[in-house]
């Protein structure tokens, strides 16, 4: 189960393992209360039923492949940090979990049926403090503790069987291919699909509620889980608005509860869980120091995807803690890549602003130099290039810059 992933029935049929849910929204359901969320597994859990044993074995193979992947971030400080977090908010299974960090610029995290989680670096860019990161990890742990994967698998199996029999009885075959050949079949498939998604929506809501409970028990402010969705909605709105689109809202076929309704429910959860007078800590200082080294890389990965609405939103969110050379530089990069009329000038201004700060990265000086060159200010450009070369004498593009610097 994951935070956001695209559903593919085909992929479910082939792998039959990780359950998936569509990206967007769904019809509102009654809120699940955190106090009703009790873990269904204890420490050291191992499956005893045939189908679950088979699923775990398949997952062991998958974990082996993932653990050996070169897409992972291997920095022991960061991975140790994630392990600590899951070791704290993982409920009864905390010590059994494994967690891997993959360098992929999407916002996502997923838990596999055998108790290992994968988190993407895009998540680290978007979480503002440790409580939010812990909230995502706790949500994924919730899927495991409530045995969602095996329940979902069994439900899928039951429903697919039903559908196939229904199709056969209607005398219009093609079940395997999912071909529409008659009203009965269409209705049957619709009913099957709808109830399948219903089930998934309930599971996501359970994981949200369980996650809120787990983090509040650890001492994180449960409201931070609601804030995650508020931030995500803001980002999607910014992205869609830039491209002149509307952010997709709820539809009957979406499997996740809508981000808006998740936020609303989590706010209510937080109100219930927060104990007046108790001191909560969102761990922001520790979080910022942990991800400080990787943050420039994460910004780089994000900005180079050229989704200006989303990137600008993220930079402005990070800038709530204060602008600095790094953020002004990447602001410039967003304009430069966007390159609409006027953006070149905006980029110039951002680079010029960036280099005033002591933490401006070397690249800011190089782009500042290129800006100045294009503005017809060669002497200043040469000075900027010289500064770049001084900061990074072994820069891979030093030969080209030297030629420009004259």
């Amino acid at each position, binding site marked *: 189960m994951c935070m956001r992933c695209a559903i593919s029935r085909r992929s479910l049929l082939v*792998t039959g393992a990780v359950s998936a849910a569509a990206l967007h929204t769904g019809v509102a359901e009654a809120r699940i209360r955190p106090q009703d969320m009790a873990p269904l597994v204890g420490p050291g859990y191992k499956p005893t039923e*045939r189908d679950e044993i088979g*699923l775990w*074995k398949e997952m062991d193979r998958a974990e082996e492949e993932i653990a050996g992947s070169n897409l992972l971030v291997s920095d022991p400080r960061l991975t140790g940090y994630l392990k600590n977090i899951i070791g704290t908010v993982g409920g009864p299974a905390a010590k059994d979990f494994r967690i891997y960090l993959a360098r992929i610029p999407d916002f996502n995290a997923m838990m596999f049926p055998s108790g290992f989680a994968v988190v993407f670096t895009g998540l680290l860019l978007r979480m503002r403090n440790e409580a939010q990161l812990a909230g995502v990890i706790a949500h994924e742990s919730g899927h495991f503790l409530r045995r969602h994967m095996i329940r979902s698998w069994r439900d899928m*199996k039951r429903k697919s069987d*039903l559908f196939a029999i229904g199709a056969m009885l209607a*005398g219009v075959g093609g*079940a*395997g291919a999912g071909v529409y050949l008659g009203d009965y079949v269409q209705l049957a498939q619709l009913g099957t699909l709808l109830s399948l998604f219903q089930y998934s929506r309930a599971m996501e809501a359970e994981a949200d509620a369980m996650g809120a409970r787990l983090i509040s028990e650890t001492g994180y402010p449960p409201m931070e889980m609601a804030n995650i969705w508020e931030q995500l909605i803001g980002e999607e709105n910014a992205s869609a608005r830039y491209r002149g689109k509307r952010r997709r809202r709820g539809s009957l076929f979406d499997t996740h509860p809508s981000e808006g309704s998740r936020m609303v429910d989590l706010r209510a959860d937080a109100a219930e869980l927060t104990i007046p007078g108790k001191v909560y800590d969102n761990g922001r200082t520790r979080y910022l120091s942990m991800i400080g080294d990787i943050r420039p890389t994460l910004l780089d990965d994000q900005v180079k995807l050229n989704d200006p609405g989303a990137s600008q939103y993220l930079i402005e969110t990070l800038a709530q803690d204060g602008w600095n050379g790094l953020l002004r530089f990447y602001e410039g990069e967003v304009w430069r890549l966007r390159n609409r009329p006027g953006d070149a000038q905006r980029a110039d201004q951002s680079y010029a602003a960036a280099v005033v700060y002591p933490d401006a990265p070397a690249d800011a000086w190089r782009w500042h130099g290129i800006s100045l060159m294009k503005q017809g200010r060669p002497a200043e450009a040469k000075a900027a290039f010289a500064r770049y070369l001084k900061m990074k004498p072994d820069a891979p593009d030093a030969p080209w810059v030297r030629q420009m610097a004259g």
Partner: protein
Amino acid sequence: MRNRGLALALALSVSASACVQMKQYADVQFTPPQGDYKLLVLRPDVTVGSLTTGGMVEPRADWIDQARASITAAIKAQQGTRGGTVTFVERRNELSGVTPDELAEVERLNAAVDESIVVHKYLGDYLPTKRGKGLDWTVGQGAVELGRKTGYDYALFLHAEDQVASGGRIALGVLGLAGCIVGFCAPNIGGAQQLDYASLVDLKTGKVVWFNVVIASSQVPGIKFGDIRTPAGAAQMVDRLLGRMKPGQDVGKGVVMSPDAQGSR
């Protein structure tokens, strides 16, 4: 896991009929290994599941173990008749002489090479410069280094997947057939699939010298094709894959392997 996309594509491209389809390609200079050689079988990717009524695959742990054991035994026996020694490597850290990373690099490139062979030889998107040349791909110096450091002559990359129709599926198939008898024919749902491929790399040169794909599909559930969980089924699969290795086209005309009844060239 990434090979699943490939397996699916191959399965999709097979037309619906009950037969064993097999085609092997060999490098033009290839002579199947005989005599005293050392063969490395790398991390055979075996999955065996149960095909549920609705078409989903349910992995079965006991079957997977059984199938692995059967295939291992079958390969050892089969290669034993040729005079070689076979070593299976299940995990990347089990091969002495190379680090897991070094092995991973070779595996990744090999996966890309195998993918290319499937796309440009089997799926029909052929490359004009390779037409009629048998197999013309290499895994390069990395594979040669692997051979040098570990002392093996050949490396076999194996992928085997077998789905067994579960009870419910068979019942459904019967229903369909019954429908056919009374005048209405429901199209076959598609029974057990068996998709296997093997690629043999000569570690002295790094070249892929032999590649084979077997798709054995029964469109009528309940009719078993070489169920690889059983020793007989595994032996049959291994025989289809490895036993009928044919020499490449430039090798002397006098060399003839046991003729192959179906569909290979």
